[in-house]
């Protein structure tokens, strides 16, 4: 277990180091933007008029590689203005508007800005498809990174250390697949609460003393999840799941080539913690866009004991007594990987 814990930690660190962009914490709407949010990439046209000095202070668009709170006028701004402006007599005014579009702060009042019609950025963005990237960069608003509908597809591995479980498996692993959906129900700053509904299914089987024995478990669970966004692409969470688990066991008795079946229900609960990393999706939180997340979590699953009482089917000899094979307790620590799609 120590080894596994180390491995999981190493994996987590590795994932962070390879998946995350450069420092980009921007929850409060700071002007900084991640490196991956490029500024307009077109080189400034030689014949483009220089940016208006008056507009320069209002420009919040980062230059490539810029990390300072206040950037110099982007070289692309004239290009953008050249493309977007229907006329060339207002380049100074257009450039700052274009580059200011992702910024959260309103431009300071100036002669140039007041002269610009408010619909121009929209028009500019619409008219310049090559600039979508720049318009979808993270603005500092978590928005739909945090407040979203989501669907879940995962695989969980339980480490079941129950001796009765050994009837069905030659090791302690119980792998179950999870499908679920949910919605963020409450948001406050970086903190949010989501509600999740899960259906899980998994099975094991083994040859036990000449009997083919199999176990199938299904779980329905409702789980409130508390999240804290460390970054718009990363959040940690804790979850308490409550639900019911159906345990279905079969025992193939080759004396009469028939099956004996055990069905039972148990109360189940999960206490889990983990992290989710957004690996695909639009950076702009204001827009409701589909996004993909990778979720890794660990925890403990608490399940009440169920009695395995195998009842014979019609192929069994008449008046076959049930095979009582003891109590099964599927409580176990677990580790889960999941793909989360949000919208």
């Amino acid at each position: 277990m120590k080894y596994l814990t180390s491995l999981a930690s190493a994996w987590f660190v590795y994932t962070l180091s390879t998946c995350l962009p450069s420092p980009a914490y921007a929850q409060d709407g700071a002007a900084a933007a991640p490196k991956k949010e490029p500024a307009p990439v077109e080189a400034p046209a030689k014949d483009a008029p220089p940016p208006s000095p008056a507009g320069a202070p209002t420009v919040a668009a980062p230059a490539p590689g810029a990390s300072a709170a206040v950037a110099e006028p982007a070289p692309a701004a004239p290009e953008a203005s050249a493309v977007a402006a229907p006329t060339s007599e207002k380049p100074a005014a257009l450039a700052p508007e274009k580059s200011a579009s992702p910024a959260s702060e309103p431009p300071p009042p100036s002669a140039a800005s007041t002269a610009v019609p408010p619909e121009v950025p929209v028009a500019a963005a619409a008219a310049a498809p090559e600039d979508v990237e720049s318009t979808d960069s993270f603005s500092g608003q978590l928005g739909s990174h945090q407040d979203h509908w989501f669907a879940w597809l995962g695989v969980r591995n339980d480490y079941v250390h129950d001796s009765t479980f050994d009837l069905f498996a030659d090791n302690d692993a119980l792998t179950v697949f999870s499908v679920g959906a949910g919605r963020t129900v409450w948001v406050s700053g970086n903190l949010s609460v989501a509600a999740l509904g899960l259906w899980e299914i998994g099975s094991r089987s083994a040859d036990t003393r000449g009997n083919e024995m199999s176990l199938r478990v299904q779980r329905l669970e409702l789980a409130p999840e508390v999240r804290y966004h460390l970054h718009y692409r990363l959040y940690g969470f804790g979850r308490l799941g409550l639900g019911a688990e159906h345990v279905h066991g079969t025992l193939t008795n080759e004396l009469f080539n028939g099956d004996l079946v055990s069905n039972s229900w148990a109360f189940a609960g999960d206490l889990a913690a983990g992290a989710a990393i957004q690996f695909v999706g639009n950076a702009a939180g204001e827009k409701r866009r589909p996004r993909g997340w990778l979720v890794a979590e660990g925890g403990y699953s608490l399940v009440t004991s169920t009695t395995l009482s195998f009842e014979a089917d019609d192929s069994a000899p008449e008046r076959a007594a049930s095979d009582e094979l003891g109590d099964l307790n599927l409580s176990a620590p677990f580790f889960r990987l999941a793909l989360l799609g949000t919208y």
Partner: protein
Amino acid sequence: MMKQLLRMGLVSVGLLSACGERADKWDAPAGEARSMGLVGAAAILDAPLHRVIMVTSPSRYEVGTHSFDVGKNVAVMAASEDRDTLFVLSKGVQPRRNPGDELPSVTVIDAAPSPSLAHRFELTDPMQQLAVDPREEWLVAFKGDSTVTNPNEFVLLPLKGAEARQSVTIRSFGGVPEEVVFTDELVVPGGPDRRFLIVRTDRDIALVDLRELESEEVTVQTPSTSQGAQARPAQVVFDPGRPASDDDFGDPARIGVRLEGEPDVMLLELGEPAEGSTRDFKINFNIVNVGGVPSAIEFVHTDFGLRLAALVPGRSDAKLIDPTTTVVESVAFPKPYSKLTRVEAAEGEFALLYSPDVSGIAFWALGRASGTLSKSVEQNEIDLSVSAVRDVPGSFSHLKILEGDQATRFFVLDLEQRQTFPMLTETQGFTVNVAPDGRRAWAFHRARTEFASVELSDLHPTSLSVKVPVSAVYDIEREDGTRAALALHGTDNARRQGTLGVTLFDAEEPDSADTRFFGGLLMEGL
């Protein structure tokens, strides 16, 4: 990057999955599952898990199981004569290299009224054979099985009293023990009556005094054969003798020995000890030629006294040897019978003669055997070559069950009426078990689902049917005195894959429509 993540995730899941291998017991095969019927339970040897499962029936529709560890490498599983105790000899871990490695042992399990562990003897060396005293006073483990063994060593384990276990090595003239016979109390001229352990080796006979284990045993070598080799003892019988009284000289205890392939029979007598001898007896020994190779010998009591009867099938006769004078009388039989069973009946003692090679049986009246020899044999022509005669205990002890090899019938022999009642079976190969209470017999076939109970009071057969082929049937007693029949499935090398099962019947009123099936016996107690 995604591929890396996926790979690492799979590795993580894989590592978790590999944790916690299950206990070996779940992977143990079913094994041959040898079974044995006892008074209150059926014993099933679960050799792969080194245990015996005792199957009982606490009430009419219930089956109970009790599991007992009996040690690794079970060599012998034997029941006492009254079938209320089970003895299991195991060899333990061999070779034994660690202090925790299990020693060879003998486990004693009481089967009635409720199975319980009575005792466990640990041995220092593994043995291959176990002899059970019919009186349950002694167990003898012999025939060592290790790198260096002393085949003439016997480990005597006391089942009653405070005697300590004792290891005895008999004197050897190169022989290897083959069988041990526990005697009754034999009359010993110079001391109190006592029991002996007679060891039959491949070339001599040794008498171990069970009253004085420290005393040296008496060894009697067999005569040489015509080829010059030492004759091989094939059978040992004894007569306890009759103690002398004021008006009776009594009879000394005698031992008869049949020799393999030889026409000679050895007669040993426990006579008066020689003067100055430290022993209480002296062995007097005679060799009697019976004119042919005998197939069986037995001490019988005739109107003229004790005789040693020797069947000589090659001559279709028997010889009656007067052990005092060694005079031999012949009794001609209509058929070459090779086996006999001595029977006590109201009209006197007689022998039941039979043979697996010829059909029919004969009653040989021993009381009038001498003097009226021609009238002493009564032939009964039955269409069966009898290979085994099963006793019926209890109130129907005048009945015998006659079985043949691969026959489509068996017979119930009424010794009082001298009548034989055929019981026909659908196919060959039926096995017959007699209930310990002697009230019924069970006939079953290992590959069939039909079997039958035969009520011995009126010989009424009740046909029964189950869904799974029957491998054995045992009639056991419940704690409340009622009886249950356990029809086992999958035991005793039955053709199967997987678990064992049992169908429970009411033995006294068996009915196929009133049963209960229990599967998964091998899972019980794990």
